[in-house]
């Protein structure tokens, strides 16, 4: 692992302006992603978790400029992706790929598996038809599909197999970094485990880095090296996975972990539950965005947004009272 991270995100923001559907007047701003910063090293998996609407998928898409960010920097191998023009971007996109959630809608039903998997190669150019077909066969084999099925269409495959096709497509152009946007969430658990193992094997073989976006905390724990937790468009905590899961420092992370169902009926019992629901990202509160639901919130939390700051080691948290909470828990 080299010292400079493969990907460095700084103050990445995306604000959507909401207009009234009838008059067209601006009624507010949705801060879908607000000043998000993180690093991902070569060969590393960063898990990104949070509830629906927290901005985790938007973050993933901003990195690839599938959605244009308003602000910030995305440094990939030292180059700021947000400064590139269309031609430069196309060139670098072969190194950055994405696997989507829904294996039913993310593959074109009128394209054969070969066309789907070789499309990135075709767009990059420089390969003959035969070379591309050879590579497609090799990729299908890599993701555990029968290479003879190359002429089939997506509907002839099950959900898990389709997700493998999506992974083969992402691998086609030999990427360094893959955004896995809820890549296993739609799968049944017996099939999900197969795809998780596949992603880990591929990572080892090709030294890939992943941004693994998911709402399932157990899956994220399994696959990630480090985990970032988002709430209402902001990162509230980042840490090595063991530190995050065994000693969460942000009250929201603590609440998320407490909400996971128990692993065995004998472990049932009353646990502290988070009340209320995620508030709207439209015109969020001025202070800490979690303060409306936080059982520990004080006046300062409602007025001043806490910055993401370093605690011990590589543990970062955005909470005014992280130390106090930690001391109280111990």
């Amino acid at each position: 692992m080299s010292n400079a991270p493969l990907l460095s995100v700084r103050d990445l923001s995306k604000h959507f302006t909401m207009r009234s559907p009838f008059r067209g007047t601006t009624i507010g701003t949705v801060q879908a992603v607000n000043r998000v910063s993180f690093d991902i090293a070569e060969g590393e998996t960063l898990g990104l978790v949070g509830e629906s609407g927290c901005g985790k998928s938007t973050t993933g898409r901003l990195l690839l400029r599938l959605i244009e960010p308003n602000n910030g920097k995305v440094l990939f191998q030292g180059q700021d992706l947000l400064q590139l023009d269309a031609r430069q971007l196309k060139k670098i996109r072969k190194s950055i790929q994405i696997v989507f959630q829904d294996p039913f809608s993310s593959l074109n039903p009128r394209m054969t598996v070969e066309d789907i998997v070789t499309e990135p190669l075709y767009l990059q150019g420089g390969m003959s038809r035969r070379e591309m077909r050879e590579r497609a066969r090799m990729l299908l084999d890599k993701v555990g599909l029968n290479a003879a099925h190359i002429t089939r269409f997506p509907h002839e495959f099950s959900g898990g197999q389709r997700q493998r096709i999506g992974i083969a497509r992402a691998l086609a152009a030999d990427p360094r970094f893959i955004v896995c946007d809820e890549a296993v969430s739609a799968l049944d658990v017996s099939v999900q485990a197969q795809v998780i193992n596949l992603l880990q094997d591929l990572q080892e073989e090709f030294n890939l880095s992943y941004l693994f976006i998911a709402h399932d905390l157990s899956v994220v724990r399994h696959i990630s090296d480090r985990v970032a937790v988002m709430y209402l468009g902001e990162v509230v905590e980042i840490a090595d996975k063991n530190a995050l899961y065994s000693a969460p420092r942000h009250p929201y992370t603590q609440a998320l972990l407490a909400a996971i169902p128990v692993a065995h009926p004998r472990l049932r019992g009353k646990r502290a539950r988070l009340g209320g629901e995620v508030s709207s990202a439209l015109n969020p509160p001025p202070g800490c965005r979690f303060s409306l639901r936080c059982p520990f919130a004080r006046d300062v939390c409602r007025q001043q947004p806490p910055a993401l700051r370093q605690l011990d080691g590589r543990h970062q948290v955005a909470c005014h009272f992280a130390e106090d909470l930690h001391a109280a828990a111990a």
Partner: protein
Amino acid sequence: MQTEPILRVEGLRTTFSGDEGTAVAVDDVSFDVNAGEIVGLIGESGSGKSVTALAIMGLLPKDTARVTAERILFDGHDLVRASEREMRRLRGRAIGMIFQEPMSSLNPVLKIGDQLIEPIRIHERISHRAAFDRGVELLSKVGIPSPIQRMNDYPHQLSGGMRQRVMIAIALSCSPKLLLADEPTTALDVTIQAQLLDLLLEIQSETKMAIVLITHSMGVIAECADKVVVMYSGRIAEQGPVTEIFDRPGHPYTKGLMQCTPELTGNPRRLTTIPGSLPSLSALPPGCRFAPRCGLALPTCEAGRPPMIGLRGTHASACIRADELVAAAAQPEEADA
């Protein structure tokens, strides 16, 4: 403890016929639900768990689905032979139901209050005023803030979690003896899921109604169920008390399901997987339906349907090697070869 179960399903079979022939979605399913008990019905997509619930309620389309059973006894009524009129009297009153999709199971053009009052006014002879008051009371019971105002809201004005609370309120409106909850928390975020499961458990301990909880999550089962019915490809793989199932699973499918769920405790480098995928209903294997994916399968497994083998107490498994599995589980952590 009541000795007679509140719901007894015996030999339930459901076939769907379409242009491409017929498919048996549920094949000879039998289980009991005692009063005050939470029975978890677990399985992956296509295992027949939702169809089982709809068949019990008599809600499957009559033109394509054929439901047969030796009997489905609910509180003295045989639901397979009940007339539509009789079913209408039971549905929404003695048996409540909650569906997965809180977005589509409420009528978008009717106010919450009207949808809440409707079943009460149909089943009970009380005034609109009294029904309205009951509705407000129900909304506050399921944890909806400012319930009187909410009665006048439309479904789109509520979040997914709030809509599911409204669904629970509607299901509870006539104090049912049995609640069928079909993946009630699947579409929701984990903190909202936790709130709703707590709510269901709280109401259940108060009213002592029986619940059939359909889910695909072992975690939800571990959190709530007293008894578990594991379904695979239209049949019951295994059933028994929840601790028994978790400690000594008697079916390789149940064991596999637990091993490939990345639980919070224990975090192996690699997940144990179940190879292959669920069989299609149009090409079912002749013997045990799990046999093609099973690491323990013997030639006899593919020959014929395995019988239900009784294990300890009410625990039973449709696997001819169930005894071996249970014995192996009793030994502490035998290496999984």
